[in-house]
């Protein structure tokens, strides 16, 4: 692995971490809005008013003694996901896909008893997965039934779509596919595949795993070149509406496509990563600067999406 000169990176318009933090996150993201995105429960409530759908909330576990109710609630459920409300980067998320007698089957295929899940809830409440180790709340959501067109590309986990939204404009997007290496999680630095998406059309551009270009999914063996996201414009508009809901100028919006419900919001991220640039093979800076230079920002999400689709398919 070699090195690349800073000049070439500047030419490519690559956004780096220091610049993202100083020039975008701290300039466009109000500190007071952070709890809204760092807490999945608050996010759910905030976006629901803006016609952004999220997976159905089954239960909220706030106190240790409420864990006993979890057993009753989960009794007759086939699949669900347990998430820490303040977790970040997919930490502490346990996905149960089915039942095998008394035991629950995790997405990875492992079978666990209900007491393991209860222990997991305890850990979440104690703040093991929350950002600063503060006490947390566990939420139980219904399982997303991934639309089969996308699900076939992913190994076990649900593929999700990350869209970076800057001042309400979707500027860059990628599809994240779980792999064996990522343990069924759509987390890029754990080895998930990132597939860059053309903002104008929703077609795939490039794909990377561990920052290196790939053309085939290592586990499913499917070619990653001709993926096309359905209902692309609607997804972009949904992401764009999150700007109105939270007021965050620079954020990452994570969406999934449910077979029955359509696009659902999984979570928002006030500090979206930089790997999306590698998946797209393009730098973020030209697009961010284009929007910063706009004298009259568009008012409605639909107008913003239209502008972004027109402009950024070329940039």
């Amino acid at each position: 692995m070699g090195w690349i000169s800073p000049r070439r990176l500047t030419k490519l318009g690559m956004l780096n971490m220091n610049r993202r933090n100083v020039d975008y996150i701290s300039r466009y993201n109000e500190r007071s809005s952070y709890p809204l995105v760092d807490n999945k429960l608050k996010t759910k409530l905030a976006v629901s008013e803006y016609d952004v759908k999220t997976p159905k909330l089954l239960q909220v576990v706030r106190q240790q003694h409420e864990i006993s109710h979890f057993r009753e609630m989960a009794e007759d459920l086939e699949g669900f996901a347990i998430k820490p409300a303040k977790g970040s980067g997919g930490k502490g998320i346990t996905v149960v896909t089915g039942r095998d007698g008394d035991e629950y089957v995790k997405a990875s295929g492992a079978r666990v008893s209900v007491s393991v899940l209860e222990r997991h809830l305890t850990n979440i409440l104690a703040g093991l997965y929350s950002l600063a180790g503060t006490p947390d709340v566990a939420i139980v959501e219904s399982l997303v039934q991934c639309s089969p067109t996308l699900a076939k590309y992913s190994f076990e986990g649900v593929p999700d779509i990350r869209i970076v939204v800057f001042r309400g404009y979707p500027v860059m997007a990628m599809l994240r596919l779980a792999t064996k290496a990522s343990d069924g999680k759509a987390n890029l630095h754990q080895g998930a595949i990132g597939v860059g998406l053309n903002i104008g059309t929703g077609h795939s551009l490039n794909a990377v795993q561990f920052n290196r270009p790939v053309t085939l999914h290592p586990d499913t063996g499917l070619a990653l070149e001709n993926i096309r996201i359905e209902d692309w414009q609607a997804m972009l508009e949904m992401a764009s509406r999150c700007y109105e809901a939270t007021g965050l100028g620079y954020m990452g919006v994570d969406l999934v496509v449910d077979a029955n419900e359509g696009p659902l919001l999984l979570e928002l991220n006030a500090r979206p990563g930089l790997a999306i640039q590698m998946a797209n093979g393009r730098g973020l800076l030209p697009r961010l600067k284009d929007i910063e230079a706009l004298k009259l920002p568009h008012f409605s999400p639909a107008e913003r999406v239209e502008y972004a689709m027109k402009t950024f398919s070329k940039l």
Partner: protein
Amino acid sequence: MTAQSKAPFYVFVLLLIAAGIATAVWRHLELGVPWKTGEQQPVWMIEARVDFEGLGEAAKVNLHIPENPPGFRILTEQAASPGYGFAILEESGSRRAEWTKRNVTGTQTLYFKAQFVPEDPFTESEHSAQPDPRNEFWEEPQSTAVRELLDKARERSSSPESLTRELIRLVQPDASTQNTTLLVSEDNHVKLLDRMLNYAGIAARTADGLQLEDARRRQQLVPFLQIHNGERWLTFDPRTGEQGVPENLLLWRQGSESLLDVVGGDDSEVSFSMLRQTLPALQLATMESNKNGFSVLGFHQLPIEEQGMFRMLLLLPLGALIVAFMRIVIGIRTSGTFMPVLIAIAFVQTTLVPGLVAFLSVIAIGLLLRGYLSSLNLLLVSRISALIILVIFITAGLSIIGYQMGFNTGMTVTFFPMVILAWTIERMSILWEEEGAREVFTQGTGSLVVAIFAYLAMDAPMARHLTFNFPELHLVVLGLILLMGQYTGYKLSELRRFNPMKAYD
């Protein structure tokens, strides 16, 4: 922050850095706080000893002491004289030490001790107003001899300085000219020169100097000649005619008439002993600053215990600077932002290798035990608490084993902050479960590398010296950290991370 509002920020940072450096330089120049640690400065300890015979009545001994001897600064003064009242008097431009006692009989010895610091560069005596020459009167035949000698000297000279030099050359005790032999005898020739110069209209006076040589005892003062050139007093060696105060010559008496006055005593004499000492330049600066009130700016006034604490505290900014640099510019990932600084502080107390061994063994054993704890299904807080206790057991065990095996360094484990160790183990353990051993290794190594760099920076004797003695330099550190907070360029690690982007160029 927008582009326009950055200018005042940079000006502010620049001011901070400039203020820090300027204060440090000023303190170095004015107070002599040394830049380097081991700087030594020579100090002359001179002891004047006054002996006299008491006459059985009240005695008053009055010794001239130097005020501003050219080329030296007075550091300390003290008198040792049991039973005597002592005071330093300043009268009409001359300083005198005065001992008094009601009833004095028999041989008496009084001591006056002073420490002198040679000044570098050598300074001339201060400006002073020109005094009028004294009127001198000579009888015949000396009067004619004096006039002739002066005429001769005047002929070969052009200025008061050169006249003095010529006159000294002419009036030497061993000169064989008739005029000279008439006037000069062995013990009066300095006095004679003084009188002749005053007669010639040049303000002149005598002075007494002390030749400084290490460990000399019972030394006497050597007379010197001084003339005033309109600006300041110039010193001449009456034996060679050389101008200027020779090196290692301390002018004990200048200007005043008598060296020693004794009332109520007989057979009085003064003799001098001297000793060359070396003091650390730092101690010297401290002693002097204590005198002139600048000490407020230093920590030397605090009790020793607090000083030790501040020594440690003042190293922290340096560690923070290293961490900021490593994370912002280099891009090394560490577990916990300032955990490396705390480890580095512990390393400072344990020294590097024993510290590393101790740290790694505690973490390794802790991770093993944590594996068991996680199967107990405990609440987080009690798990951490249990881990803290385990960490204490581990450190105690390591200390005892180390001690039994003869390594005193085993004891140093106790310097590590226990809570930090416990948290580190907990974090590493979760990292291991969630992201695999590889991530634990990356972050662990990152933290250790940063800690080692921070340790190396903080342990440098230069760093310890500068941070403690020039606390204002922390403004510079602050400025640098603020500047780094504005760095939006690529990290070194990103040049590697983004390398595959070459394909799209």
